[in-house]
């Protein structure tokens, strides 16, 4: 007699972080949700702009009035970090979702088409995944006078689909030999129907885990590009906070701490959220 499958606890949000399967899901999403909520609250209800300068307060230490202190030109670091995190997260999630939506069907279709198409997709994925994305981004952005988040998004989207396609390709190679796929074909279902109703749903469990790690690496890439001077020209990026921190390391180390910890916490929360997909 087999054991009954685990059941999700019933009830409202009070039991969301309780026990069992949903508890793990809740804990995994909690850091990302908390960061997003705090950043959104500061961006929506905060009185300071992330670009407003107040030179008198330049490099001042954290205080009750300004919990993260001030950066270059007296910019409020809390406002700058909150806006930068929000924009970075939106960019990372949007590009990761784009990669997921494009890469998953492409990889699955390649595995089912076999032959040259399969080899071509696999080789392209190898090439894109092997080559440093950072270098690729520098090449494309060097042709742009003043990069914006749209430019960054396009550059990241050029390579973001590859890991999803690679995973979908590998998983579909297993699925195409499965008995239930043979059965569907034997029952006369069209290839499109088999692909859409049987293959794709069985891929998603594995492939969606990649969403979190792709988004985390995009957060870091965006910050790194901004740090070396290829970021959005509005200056609202975690890389810019870090850049200010490095420049003022001796007189205002709190700026460096805010920049470095923000990059780490945002990237780590994405990775932790990816664990929720495994459940």
């Amino acid at each position, binding site marked *: 007699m087999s054991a009954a499958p685990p059941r999700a606890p019933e009830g409202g949000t009070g039991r969301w972080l309780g026990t069992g399967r949903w508890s793990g899901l809740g804990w995994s999403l909690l850091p990302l949700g908390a960061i997003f909520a705090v950043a959104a609250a500061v961006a929506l209800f905060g009185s300071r702009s992330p670009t407003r300068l107040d030179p008198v307060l330049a490099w001042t230490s954290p205080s009750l009035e300004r919990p993260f202190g001030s950066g270059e030109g007296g910019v409020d670091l809390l406002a700058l970090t909150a806006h930068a995190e929000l924009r970075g997260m939106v960019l990372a999630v949007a590009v990761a979702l784009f990669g997921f939506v494009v890469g998953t069907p492409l990889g699955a279709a390649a595995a089912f088409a076999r032959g040259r198409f399969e080899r071509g997709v696999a080789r392209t994925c190898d090439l894109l995944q092997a080559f*440093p994305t950072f270098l690729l981004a520098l090449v494309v952005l060097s042709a742009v006078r003043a990069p914006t988040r749209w430019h960054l998004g396009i550059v990241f989207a050029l390579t973001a689909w590859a890991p999803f396609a690679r995973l979908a390709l590998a998983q579909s190679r297993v699925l195409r030999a499965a008995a239930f796929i043979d059965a569907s074909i034997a029952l006369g279902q069209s290839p499109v129907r088999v692909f859409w109703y049987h293959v794709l749903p069985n891929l998603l469990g594995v492939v969606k885990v990649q969403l979190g790690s792709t988004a985390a690496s995009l957060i870091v890439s965006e910050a790194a590009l901004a740090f070396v001077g290829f970021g959005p020209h509005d200056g609202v990026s975690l890389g810019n906070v870090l850049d200010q921190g490095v420049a003022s390391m001796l007189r205002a180390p709190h700026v460096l701490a805010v920049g470095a910890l923000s990059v780490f916490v945002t990237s780590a929360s994405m990775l932790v959220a990816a664990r929720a997909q495994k459940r």
Partner: protein
Amino acid sequence: MAWSTAEAALVLLVLASLVFVALRTLPGDPAALILGDQASAEELAALRARLGFDRPLYVQYAHFLRGLLSLDFGDSLRRPGVRAGARVLEALGPTGELAALAVAMGSVLGVTGAVLAVGPWLGTARRFVERAFVAVAATPLLAFAPLLTYVLAVKWRLLPLPGDPDAGFLGLLFASGLLAIPLSAHVARIGRVALLEVSGAPFLTVVRAKGGSFARTWYLHGLPATAGPIVTTIGTQLGALLGGAVVLERLFERPGLGTLILESYASRDLPVLEASVVAAGALFVLTQAIAGAVHAAIDPRVRS
């Protein structure tokens, strides 16, 4: 071997073509980007003619490919009279030193960590070591490198600032060490799993039965059997290492290929930008080939 060389050449050709396409076909006039908004129409036309932008695209591409084959990308716009290739060669030295030392340190630290994580020396603390590998591998270089620099070089003054011209080898060692930390964590994670897989193999039992110490068992017999995944991990991490080198060179204001790319971007020195990105790609492809050759040299199954 011929197939690998052809693949490497293809990767370089794709990259070089991408550089060519990006700089010539994306919206915006490169001559205007270089000279700025104040340039006159004559100045813009003269620069376009000098860079060959007034010719048809296929002629420009053929000229570009000829330059690629003869490693001649033209003169630097920022330093007239100096070849772009010469500037890149000058910058390759410091970046090569930084990356080579980082690979050496990351490999030694990672392999040592992997052996410690599977050997009997740490007892129950081994599970914490594995978690530490995961945490370090997931921590971006961009976050910990400036903080470690502040703590070790500015606050405690244990090490010199790696960008200090007087820092010498210690500065290089510090910068390489920062690059080596994430690499060592990746190597340790993969190495640990690979070593665990062979841990029950009969040949290791024979070594132990013949009186071999744990260190001898793992280092002399276990590690060569797991060289494949470890060398492959180092090879795949080289891309991240190159990106990290650009960030570190910018962070410490050290000379190198990354600094040259950023400088040539800022001054729109297109010949140098093209040459340096192609050189970075070649460096990457070369190191991948070396990783493959090392793997084949250690593991005869790969050669066959």
